[in-house]
């Protein structure tokens, strides 16, 4: 193909033919942004965000999350039922049940106006 014919052929190419690669990149970026947006919505709506202690601001307590559930010794779902196996289960279960009942989770009233200092104490003037 001569140089002249070639340049003539290029002139006849449409806009899309000329910018095919750029269009491909643009579409890829749009699809990626869309998928990221969808995944972020799912992340927030599903409750996964609340369990994610790697978020900024939560790293200080992330190490305190109990990742080891070894305390729950695996009680086998198969095997015979006799007094011994029942007692074994009772021992495992009672230990966990007692430990959970010992702490009053989400108790107290930390969001009370008085606790949060906009109740009765006047701190603006230092007078109570």
């Amino acid at each position: 193909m001569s140089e002249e014919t070639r340049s003539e052929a290029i002139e006849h190419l449409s806009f899309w033919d000329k910018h095919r690669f750029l269009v491909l990149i643009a579409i890829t970026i749009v699809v990626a942004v869309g998928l990221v947006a969808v995944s972020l919505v799912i992340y927030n709506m599903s409750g996964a965000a609340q369990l994610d202690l790697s978020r900024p601001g939560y790293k200080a307590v992330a190490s305190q999350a109990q990742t080891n559930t070894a305390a729950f010794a695996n009680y086998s779902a198969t095997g015979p039922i006799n007094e011994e196996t029942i007692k074994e289960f009772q021992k495992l279960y009672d230990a966990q049940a007692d430990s959970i009942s010992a702490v009053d989770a989400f108790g107290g009233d930390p969001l009370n106006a008085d606790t949060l200092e906009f109740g009765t104490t006047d701190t603006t003037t230092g007078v109570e």
Partner: protein
Amino acid sequence: MNIRSRRFTFGIVASSLVALLAVVFFAGSTLAADEPLTSEQKQRIQANCQSIKSTLNQLHVSDALLRVNRGQFYESLAGKLMDRFNGRLAANDIDAKSMVAITGSYRTALNTFRTDYQVYEHQLADALAIDCTKEAQAFHDSVEEARTKRSKVHQDVLRLNEYISDYKLAVNTFAESYGEVSTGDAE
């Protein structure tokens, strides 16, 4: 008018009065909750804005940790102990209806706990996003709303603890009856 119809009229009047008093009481408490802040209270919120937000932030973080640890515990209790014991009983053809029913209710309560915590967390995050130096009233209302939602989460925790105790009781009852049956068989 005979005695019967008098009693009937008196009953209607008395119940109407009780209903009226109940309406007044609840309406009063609702009004009190929505009561606008006084200028002094607004000033106090604006003056303590930073320290209040700092406290709320700490609570936000510590509650998140509590949610993670509690959620994991509750999930493990159901998956590693309750379900397995129920399965073992079923595999041995032993009737475990009461324990299965409690496990079912426990799982429902666990789902409610998850949802209620999510709602509470969103509310607290919304409250933290409000600029309390400019919108003291909105901030106060938002914190009050979060307070109500947190107490709902607490109720869910109490309900879960109740189911844990109920399951323990059911297992103890089963163990006793099983012991009696096995002793009877031996004799």
